[in-house]
């Protein structure tokens, strides 16, 4: 039944599930995209909807922003390269070597991702600003002049982005590495290849889908990255597409149409990248989970393991410990400076933060939304990944392009499409938590599908085919063969979706209603409107609450992961 039984004249459960989930994804994505395209081609009065006239003026206006396009490209490419290097090296160390404390490091590697780039940007701004940065204050106190570092540069922005997105790259690449049969690497070493040669010739090619998936995903994240560029770029008049869009939609009258055209143009870039990605993965076979049993093993790297241990510690220090310590230190000061003074000490920031009702309800809402998005998302995106990469249903390839769209368009802009779309929807969704749930499920489709697909591509189809030959129905073999093999990928996707939802900023800013506030925009608001010390406090509180939620979730998921499969 290779074409879903359509030829047999009846509709199979496989086809119903496949097309059903495709329809949901299409509605989630294409419905707001329609409004986004409408805005991008709207050349009439921006305050009147639906548009009164159409044209390409908004796209022509993009040629007025060559410097912004160049800035975006420089930052995104630099950050993607750095993030992939971090992700690949850390994944290799923790998945394939006997580095001390491997298990603990593996747990800690996800921490930078839930710390959020916003927290990182705030902390690194306090550390590396040319005048007030703690590092530079200490530098000058030692007798030097000028500044040791300047974080407000393109490479400073890329560095902070990479520190936090490196964690995503790690999760995506490590999931693939862990599922790889170690006998392939062992065979290489048995016939005399060095560790480095084995890593480059065996490990690297086998993790190509994971690395490429991570590259496409991380690059898209960088293109759409907002918080870091806002905090670190704008002080130095360095604008990228997202911060330019932010300015365009904040001003009066807002230039939403040009912002929409900017967002839509990015899709062309992503479309090209996705096309290349598909060509590469369809050209080769990357299945390493086959019917042949294997036991995951790691290589003994001898004394090198202490160097690798140092690398892991270094990464976690600059991405986790240092930023948290900086924010903690700033949160107990009236005005954040490098050197402590008794009269500058205060606990008022914590009192003020805890007394903010909006923040308390926003935190609760964020956690509820994170849980709902991750749970519904894993099912929806797991089915979509299966549909795209496994089902052979006609048109399934097209779905991948649809699913990628939200990744390609900055969320700030995509949110306008969603706002217009769900405003006119006959069921009352606008202004409620449901709108944010729908928005998160939409914008995180690429994240979930990519993560699950990275693992799915490694599972040899022969396992499912074998079950099919034994007479198992589609539903039965999905439950007993595919899903159990996918459990690590599904759990990783659940955690990623949970974290991504809790830290979401771009779409939430516009879609929050008076009764559906979430936490990250509140922190940005605080950065705009109160003081960096109170903002540091809020970011710390968010981190602590999310960390507590994550620990609970990880304990639960570990139990689930340990459940025997019948």
């Amino acid at each position: 039944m290779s074409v879903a039984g359509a030829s047999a004249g009846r509709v199979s459960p496989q086809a119903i599930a496949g097309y059903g989930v495709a329809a949901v994804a299409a509605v989630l994505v294409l419905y707001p995209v329609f409004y986004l395209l409408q805005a991008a081609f709207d050349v009439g009065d921006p305050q009147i909807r639906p548009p009164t006239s159409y044209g390409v003026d908004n796209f022509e206006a993009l040629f007025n922003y060559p410097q912004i396009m160049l800035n975006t490209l420089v930052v995104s490419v630099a950050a993607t390269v750095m993030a992939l290097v971090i992700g690949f090296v850390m994944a290799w160390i923790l998945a394939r070597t006997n580095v001390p404390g491997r298990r603990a490091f593996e747990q800690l590697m996800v921490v930078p991702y839930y710390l959020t780039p916003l927290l990182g940007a705030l902390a690194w701004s306090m550390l590396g600003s040319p005048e007030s940065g703690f590092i530079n204050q200490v530098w000058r106190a030692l007798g030097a002049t000028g500044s040791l570092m300047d974080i407000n540069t393109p490479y400073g922005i890329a560095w902070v982005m990479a520190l936090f997105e490196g964690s995503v790259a790690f999760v995506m690449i490590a999931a693939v590495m862990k599922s790889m049969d170690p006998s392939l690497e062992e065979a290489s070493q048995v016939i005399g290849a060095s560790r480095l040669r084995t890593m480059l010739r065996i490990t690297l090619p086998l993790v190509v889908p994971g690395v490429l998936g991570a590259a496409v995903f991380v690059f898209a994240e960088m293109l759409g990255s907002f918080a870091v560029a806002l905090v670190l770029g704008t002080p130095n008049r360095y604008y990228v597409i997202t911060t330019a869009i932010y300015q365009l939609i904040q001003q009066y009258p807002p230039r939403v149409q040009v912002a929409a055209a900017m967002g839509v143009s990015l899709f062309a870039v992503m479309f090209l990248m996705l096309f290349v990605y598909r060509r590469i993965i369809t050209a080769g076979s990357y299945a390493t989970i086959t019917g042949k049993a294997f036991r995951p093993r790691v290589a003994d790297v001898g004394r090198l393991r202490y160097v690798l241990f140092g690398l892991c510690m270094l990464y976690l220090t600059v991405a986790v410990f240092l930023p948290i310590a900086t924010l903690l230190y700033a949160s107990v000061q009236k005005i954040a400076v490098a050197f402590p003074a008794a009269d500058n000490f205060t606990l008022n920031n914590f009192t003020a933060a805890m007394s903010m009702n909006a923040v308390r309800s926003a935190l609760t809402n964020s956690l509820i939304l994170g849980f709902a998005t991750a749970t519904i998302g894993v099912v929806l995106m797991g089915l979509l990944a299966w549909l795209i990469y496994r089902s052979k249903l006609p048109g399934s390839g097209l779905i991948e392009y649809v699913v990628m769209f939200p990744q390609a368009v900055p969320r700030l802009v995509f949110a306008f499409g969603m706002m217009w779309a769900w405003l006119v929807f006959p069921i009352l969704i606008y202004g409620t938590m449901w709108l944010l749930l729908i928005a998160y499920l939409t914008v995180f489709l690429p994240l979930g599908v990519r993560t699950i697909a990275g693992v799915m591509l490694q599972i040899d189809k022969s396992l499912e085919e074998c079950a099919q030959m034994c007479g198992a129905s589609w539903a039965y073999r999905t439950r007993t063969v595919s899903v159990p093999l996918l459990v690590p990928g599904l759990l990783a996707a659940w955690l990623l979706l949970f974290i991504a939802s809790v830290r979401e900023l771009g779409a939430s800013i516009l879609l929050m209603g008076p009764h559906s506030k979430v936490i990250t925009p509140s922190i940005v608001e605080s950065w705009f409107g109160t003081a960096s010390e109170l903002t540091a406090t809020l970011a710390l509180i968010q981190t602590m609450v999310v960390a507590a939620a994550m620990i609970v979730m990880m304990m639960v998921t570990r139990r689930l992961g340990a459940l025997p499969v019948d």
Partner: protein
Amino acid sequence: MAHKVHGHFTRRALLKASAALPLVGIAMPNVLAQPMSKSPTKVLDFETNADVAKAEQEGQLVFYCHENEAGTAGIMQGFNKDFPKIKTSYVRAQTGALYSKILAERQAGRFDVDVIQLSDLAPAFDFQKKGGYEHYVSPESGAYKKDNLSSPNGYFFWTGVDPAGIAYNSDKVAAADAPKGWHDILNPRWKGKISCKISASGLQFVQWYMLRKLYGAGFWKEFAKQQPHAFDSRVQLYDRLAKADDTITAIGEYPAYILFKSRGAKVEFVAPPDGLVATPLAVGAVNKAPHPEAAKLFVDWAMSKRGQAWYQTNPNLYYASVRTDAPPMPTGVSLSQFKLLYPSDWDEYSKESPAFLKEWNGMLGL
């Protein structure tokens, strides 16, 4: 120090306003339904035409506001303290995004908001033209000058003004070297060390408009050579000033100066002799509001001496009240002691918006 120029409405603007009423499907303001003969009720220490019992029965107030999160929450906290039976909620965004949001909602037939506060009069006029405001004449209007109310009265009022001069870091700049007047912000010694606001700021628009009128178009071309750093909010400007990331700011708002001075920051404020640029903050009840009595009650409260005292003394607001009987600001200074610069013809000012956006965004590399 005395007021210099006051705003007024042209006849042409009024004619245009009435011609544009049916736009975007927004209903005509319900002027006739206004219970004109009803005598106001005294509640706490102010007067209102709202039915307080009904407002409390409605039980909610939804507020859209340009102000930062802490400031918006502060306004709601003040009202809720006086009327605990009315639960408050709000949405805040910069004026441009906020105005887009409310227009989109109304065009889609969604009426979720009761009261709106904007930081720029240009969108307030536009909203009035589109018939977005509920016409409600507050009994507290008598305490305001005609120029500080919408024309005709009853659509919006100035809940305060935000005056701005120049501010500097006193650790980095000696008082003798500090700027004295607006021309001093063009001194090349501040190049790369000076800040301003982004084009989304209504106050920045007023400053651009007024100083261009005073000193000619070349003033801002010279300013562009200073390579200023631009930010969203007054707090960011002072935060950077306090930490010496910038040495001076070309648009130091007085309310933020009070806030940072109270925190012990080494910042000083300069009032240029030609005047402080100032922007009014416009508050009005929205028509088809889901909680109309609560909306009216809020407008009366915000206009009252009580509400104005709250706006004027809340650390996240410190708005200067334009009520004729307003007490001095927390620093002991009265608004009337400042010479204020704001447009005399708001209609002409609104039309200059595209020119401002082009010059300002161009200067900032946008």
